[in-house]
């Protein structure tokens, strides 16, 4: 069921770069199978050197199952990392960007080895509207003037530390549709589409990483 360590090493050797932050969009209903796939994905991601993983579903199904996902991850990682010196801490958080921004606390001694964000529609456009409201309040209170507002300031407020822009998005959907994925966060994200709503095999994960490592960004040049 799990990829062997040696295979992993070989697969990663040929990659020129690895995304720091990987996002996955699951289309349709989230069932037990998907949650188990997500848990496996967390283990693969950690092995590949990915630091942050965000999993998106337009509905709140994922977020509501955060605890169940965490328990799957804990079970899987005990088997998966059996030959490792230590078992990495993979922590699942249901992102609630639009309700209350949570800023990470650097003094926290229990920082996880990998952060997994569960995101939904609310973290996209509604969050931008929320940020605009907060900004308007700050402008009224004189903390900032509307003329000082620029892309960098907005980016600072929209991309909360827990949820920055992913470098790669793996899209499980019949067609390439973003389904309300946070718009601000994908301005340069490479989008790897897996047609249909197929199972998340290890081969798909490696294929996506390979495609990403071949992508050449020119940043307008």
């Amino acid at each position, binding site marked *: 069921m799990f990829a062997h360590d040696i295979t992993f090493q070989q697969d990663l050797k040929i990659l020129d770069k690895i995304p720091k932050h990987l996002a996955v969009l699951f289309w349709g209903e989230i069932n037990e199978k998907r949650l188990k796939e997500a848990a496996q994905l967390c283990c693969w991601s950690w092995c590949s050197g990915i630091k942050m993983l965000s999993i998106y579903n337009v509905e709140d199904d994922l977020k509501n199952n955060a605890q169940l996902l965490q328990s799957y991850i804990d079970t899987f990682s005990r088997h998966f990392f059996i030959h490792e010196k230590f078992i990495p801490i993979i922590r699942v958080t249901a992102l609630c960007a639009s309700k209350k921004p949570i800023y990470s606390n650097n003094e926290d001694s229990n920082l996880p080895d990998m952060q997994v964000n569960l995101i939904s529609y609310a973290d*996209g*456009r*509604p969050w*931008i*509207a929320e*940020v*605009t*409201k907060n*900004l*308007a*309040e700050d*402008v*009224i209170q004189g903390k900032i003037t*509307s003329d000082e*507002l*620029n*892309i960098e300031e*907005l*980016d600072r407020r929209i991309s909360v530390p827990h949820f920055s822009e992913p470098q790669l998005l793996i899209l499980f959907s019949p*067609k*390439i*549709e*973003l*389904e*309300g*994925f*946070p*718009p*601000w966060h*994908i*301005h*340069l*994200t*490479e*989008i*790897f*589409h897996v047609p249909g709503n197929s199972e998340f095999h290890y081969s798909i994960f490696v294929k996506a990483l390979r*495609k990403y490592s071949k*992508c050449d*960004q020119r*940043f*307008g*040049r």
Partner: protein
Amino acid sequence: MPPSDFTDTNQDDETPSLKIAPNFLTSPFNYMSHHVQSLLVKILKQGPIPQHLGFIMDGNRRFARKMNYKQVFEGHFMGSDNLQEALNICFHLGVKVVTIYAFSIENFKRPKEEVDMLMELGKTKFIEFCEKSHLVNKYGFCVRILGNIALLPIDVQEAAKKVVDTTKHNTGSILNICVPYTSRDEITSSIKSVIKSVENGHMQIRDINEEIIEKCLYTYGSPPLNILIRTSGEIRLSDFLLWQCHKNCYIHFVDCFWPEFSLWELLPIILEYQLSYNSLKVTIVLSNCLFIWLICKVMITFDIMNRLG
């Protein structure tokens, strides 16, 4: 305007003049492709047509390199010619709005020589549109410039303003030219104007929502984006219409350079869009297209055999 096979065919849909139509006996393939294109457009028009198309016209320079052009910049000329072709097909199909990514704010980072040439090319196009180019005459579309215009050189700004002014009363379709544009810049400018109206007392903070932000975007007034197409095989949005394409929009990453993009690449995209409607009309369109496709295959085979023989 460059000569266009497609334009010629459309001018006289029913009885193509013998002078321009290639001879069936000497060149069956040219003869067919000439008529097949206009026939295909007619068939597609029977089904539902997307209202708003977006294009990231990528790959001009790589096309020039592939074709071994002396100047990489020639790729941009080819791209600009192909834009006319693409617009011709889109507006002929009945698309209401076409939004194109002509120049990104990030593109100012390119070598000065290239930026200057691109600006000159843009200016020429604007002037051409002002002088009632064939394309504007034919479809009566109005041109809108979307972006941070203040960043453009003064003469280009003036040409841009003039083209918007000259075509603003046209009621046909709309051509949105994004220059110099990025989506994050657009969203920022929208949020800025929302906040300014709060500051001026025209709006309450509690009334701020997605719809208000959307209303302040450059694309306000255009129907929702249905399809976004990026050529050259890159698989990212590069800061284009992020807000607009995030929902109910099919994104297509097409594996050809922009100057190579033609009806043959657009056809499957439109058909796929029509398929999502799943109606009887679409079934008819699809079976007709399949029929034409089969005929084309036969013709291509014939053509190859002809050349060999």
